[in-house]
C-alpha cells in the first residue's frame, strides 16, 4: 500500500496504490485520517470505535469516492478519525464494510470539505496494482 501527497494550488492531491481493491480503499481511509490529524492513524491504535457502511455505485471510482465521503461525514458526525477497514464484501460496484477509528475530541488539524471526483480514476498500473489520485477540497 502506498500513499503520497502531491502539490495542488489550493487543495490536497493524494495518490494511493494497493495490490488489491481492499488495499486501495484502506489506503484512502488511512491517508484521509492522517490529513484530518497529522500522523493520527500511525500512532493512535487500537481503533475501537466501529461503524458499518454499505454502498453501491456505478463503478469502482465512484464507489471509492462515495465510500471515502461517507467515512468523512461519519468522522465529523462522530468527532472521530477512522484508520482501518474490515471488508465483508467488496466488488467494483458494492461495498459492505466496517470502519475502525477513535474519537478525537481535541479537534482536527485540517478541515476537509469534501472528497471530490476530480482526477479520480481507479485503474491498474503497469505493476498490476490498483491506483488513483484523489483531490480533497480544503
Amino acid at each position, binding site marked *: 500500500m502506498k500513499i503520497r501527497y502531491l*502539490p495542488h494550488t489550493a487543495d490536497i492531491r493524494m495518490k494511493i496504490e494497493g495490490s488489491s481493491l481492499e488495499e486501495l480503499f484502506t489506503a484512502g481511509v488511512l491517508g484521509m485520517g492522517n490529513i484530518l490529524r497529522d500522523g493520527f492513524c500511525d500512532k493512535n491504535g487500537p481503533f475501537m470505535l466501529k461503524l458499518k457502511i454499505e454502498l453501491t455505485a*456505478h463503478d469502482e471510482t465512484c464507489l471509492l469516492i462515495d465510500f471515502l465521503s461517507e467515512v468523512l*461525514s461519519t468522522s465529523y*458526525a462522530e468527532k472521530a478519525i477512522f484508520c482501518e477497514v474490515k471488508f465483508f464484501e467488496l466488488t467494483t460496484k458494492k461495498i459492505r464494510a466496517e470502519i475502525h477509528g477513535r474519537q478525537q475530541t481535541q479537534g482536527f488539524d485540517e478541515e476537509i470539505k*469534501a472528497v471530490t*471526483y476530480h482526477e479520480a480514476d481507479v485503474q491498474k498500473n503497469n505493476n498490476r496494482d490498483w491506483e488513483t489520485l484523489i483531490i480533497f*477540497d480544503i
Partner: protein
Amino acid sequence: MKIKKADIHKIEDFLWEIPKAFRPNMRVPARVLASEPLLDAIMEDRSLVQLVNVASLPGIKGASLVMPDVHEGYGFPIGGVAATLHPDGAISPGGIGYDINCGVRLLTSDQKIADIKDKLEMLSKEMYAQVPSGMGKGGQIKLSTQEMDEVLLKGAEWAVEKGYGEKRDLAFMESNGRLENADPSLVSDMAKKRGTDQLGTIGSGNHFVEVDYVAEIYEETIAEAFGLSKDQVVILIHTGSRGLGHQVATDYIRQIISAMPNYGIEVPDRELACVPFNSKEGQNYFKAMCAAANYAWCNREVISWEVRNAWRNIFGPTIEPLKLMYDVAHNIAKVETHLVDGKQAQVIVHRKGATRAFGPGFEELPESYKSVGQPVIIPGSMGTCSYVLAGTTRSKELTFGSCCHGAGRRLSRTAAKKQVNAPVLKENLKEKGIFVEAGSFKGIAEEAPIAYKDVNMVVQTVSDSGIARKVAKLRPVVVVKG
C-alpha cells in the same frame, strides 16, 4: 489538453477569449478578465482547461468566465462564473462548490485606529475567545431538529428573532440574508447533524475574522454612502455554511452523477455533473442549496453577535454598536435577469469564488446604497490589505454582474509551509502592528501572504475593466483564524 497563449485572443483591454472553435464540445467561448501579467500567471496552473470544460455545460449562455483571482479548482475553476438559460439550462452543484454561500461581511465602528491601538492585542485575544474557530470544535448554540429547519428556512432572520442579531442588518445583506426557495426537507439528516453545533463558528482554512482600518478612500461619495471614512476601524468576517453545506453538496453531486444519463448529459469531469434546472433532481438540489445558503447567512450573523460581544467586552457597554455595512456570497447560484443574445432573459448564474457586483439602481439594495451600487468586499491575504468596491452597470454587460472574490491562491499549501516559518511570520506581523491569533502555526503558514497573488493587481484589474469601482482600501491589525 494544453492551452497556449496563441489560443487566447485579446478582445479588449483586460478581456481575453478562447474561442468556441477551440474544442468541439464548447457551446460558448471561454473568457478571462485579467491584465496581461495576471493572464500569464493564470496560465501556470490548469484554470483555463477547467474554464474550457465549463463552456461545455448544457444551456450555457454568453461565455464561461473567470475573474483575475482565478486558480485551479476541482472541476470548475475557483473564481468562475457560468450562466445557463432558465428554466431548462443546467444547474451544477460543482459550479457553486462544497462551501455553499461562503461569503464575506464587513462591520463598521465609530472608532479611529489611533484611539484603540493600545487595546488591539487584548481585542485579538477576546475575539479568539468569543468566536469558535478551528476544525471539529462546536459553537455555543445547539440546534434542535425544529430550530434547524427554522434556520434553513429563515436564514439570518432566525438569528435576529432569537436575539443573536440586529434587525437593521437584514437590509444590508445580499438577498436580505434569506433565499425564498429553501426547503429544509431536502437537506439530509447527516447534513443537519453536522450543522447542529456549528452556528457561530468560522472553521479553518482561509476563513477568518479580521479587524482592519480604512487606509485609503478612493471614492468619497460612495464611501460616505457605505458609512466608511479614513482611519475608521472595521471588521471583516469570512466563512460559509460549514459542514452542513459541505454535506449538501456531497449528497447532491452523488445523486446528480447518477441522474445525468437520464437526461443524456455527459461532462468532461464528474465534478461538473449537472442536470436541467427544472428537472426533479435540479429543483431538489436548488432548494437544498438555498437552505444551506440560509444557514451560512445565519452563521455570519451569529458570528457578528460574538464579535459585537467581544467588542463590548473590550471597549465597554456604552461603546457605539458595530453596524453591518454589507454581506455578500461568493459561492452560490441565483436566478437573475441578464442580457442574453440581445434580449433580457432569466439565467441561472453560478458563482464559484465570484461576487455579485450589481450597479446603481438595483432594487434589492438598501435606500442609502441605491444611487452608488452594491458593495463588493474583496478580502486580501493575511497581513496585506483588503478592498471595498462598488458594483457597476458594466459588470452586467461583461460578467453577468459579477466580480472577483479575493486575491487568489498562487502557491500550494505544501509549498507555502515549506517557504514560511510561521512563528517568525507571526512575530514579523506583530512588529508591523498586526496581531494574529490562530489555532496552529500550520494554519498561519498555509495562509501567509506569499501564498497569494497580489490583491492590489487583482483589484486594479477589476477596477480598470469597469466591472467595479475602488472605494476603500483596508489594512489589517488583528487576524483571528482556525
